[in-house]
């Protein structure tokens, strides 16, 4: 399995029989999952179904109790933990922008950790703000508390994209936003995916969001992978949990 052609076939992220537990309680059971470069895999499930845990297993914030998670062909346990995280952009629901950093400083975080030159960092910040539809001159020097919820979330996405990571993780990023803003950001997400062709794992409990954004949908129920299908296939799924979610449409 060497040579460049095998790299192209190699999944970017692979869950091999992954289980995870906290204090004896099973969170994830025997998950098998392969995510190919360029796809948006949506992890759909109720709260407590183990979706966020799966994200944290991907970037090495957690490690499986058994099985292994491989990123770019290498187990997360073999990766240098810092290197792995810097290769993966992460957007969380509460955004987690640093309140004492300006918008520009927040976006510049990983590039600065990676010791990019100041001019390259500044150029990247402006470029990302423009991509997110935020005028750099207006927003660069603002603090997170001076932004609306939607703007904060956009800055969170810009921060995750900053060092141009091949993989992006989204943990219910639009969950706390009102429906209009959420739809706008979903549109923007689709545009970004079209333009940048990143690989993304997107966690949500909203079946509409899953159908709109995902190239494939993985349904988690009680820590088990119940359905794995493209959006059309998912709508024909017959398991009880899939029907419960489809009934929300």
């Amino acid at each position: 399995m060497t040579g460049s052609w095998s790299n192209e076939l190699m999944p970017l992220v692979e869950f091999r029989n992954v289980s995870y537990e906290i204090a004896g309680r099973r969170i994830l059971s025997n998950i098998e999952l392969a995510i190919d470069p360029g796809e948006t895999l949506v992890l759909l499930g109720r709260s407590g179904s183990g979706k966020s845990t799966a994200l944290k297993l991907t970037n090495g914030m957690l490690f499986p109790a058994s099985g292994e998670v491989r990123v770019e062909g290498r187990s997360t346990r073999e990766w240098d933990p810092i290197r792995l995280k810097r290769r993966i952009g992460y957007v969380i629901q509460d955004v987690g922008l640093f309140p004492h950093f300006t918008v520009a400083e927040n976006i510049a975080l990983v590039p600065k950790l990676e010791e990019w030159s100041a001019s390259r960092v500044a150029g990247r910040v402006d470029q990302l703000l423009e991509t997110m539809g935020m005028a750099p001159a207006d927003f660069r020097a603002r603090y997170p508390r001076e932004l609306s919820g939607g703007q904060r979330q956009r800055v969170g996405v810009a921060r995750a994209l900053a060092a141009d990571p091949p993989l992006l993780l989204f943990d219910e990023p639009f969950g706390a936003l009102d429906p209009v803003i959420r739809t706008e950001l979903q549109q923007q997400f689709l545009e970004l995916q079209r333009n940048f062709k990143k690989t993304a794992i997107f966690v949500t409990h909203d079946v509409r969001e899953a159908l709109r954004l995902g190239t494939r949908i993985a349904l988690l129920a009680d820590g088990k992978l119940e359905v794995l299908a493209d959006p059309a296939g998912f709508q024909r799924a017959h398991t009880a949990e899939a029907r419960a979610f489809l009934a929300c449409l």
Partner: protein
Amino acid sequence: MREDLASDILRLTAEHLTLVASAMAIAILLGVPLGILLARRPAVRAWLLGFASVAQTIPSLALFGFLIPVPFIGGIGKRTVIVALVLYALLPILRNTFVGIASVDAAVVDSAVAMGMTGNQILRQVQLPLAARTIIAGIRVATVATIGTATIAAAIGGGGLGVFIFRGINSVDTAQILAGAIPSAALALIADGGLGWIERKLSPA
């Protein structure tokens, strides 16, 4: 006589300030790192906070008394006074450092971890700046208390403004007591105002 008093007040105020400044410098150098340790190592939390709380419950005059016979740190004079003042100042600094770091929004720390910041980078760039206000508040409380407590130093030959107060009590001379009490209160107010100003200047967490 008048000029004598004025120069005495200046001299003893300076001495008082030296005691307080030395004690606070040591207490901050010990308390802030220990507070960081508390935030990172839950195992030592109960133990350290317990020790600092117990130290603070000992009446100050008694603590000075206890320390006199202790080798190396004890004896009559400034060293013993500074040790005792450090023990008192430690708790507010320790506790506020710990609370300040522990109360940084979990989402912020989580995202710092997820961005691939190292533990030290998170501490220096995220947790300490966001906890700075709370830490300064602890230093402020400790400083004001230490300025007052330091007047007892005179009881064991530590000098400072307490010299006036003890002299005044012994000779039933209110003027002498006030010569110690007023500068001490003024110092406390100035320290409170100055540190309060710094506290407000720091960006809100």
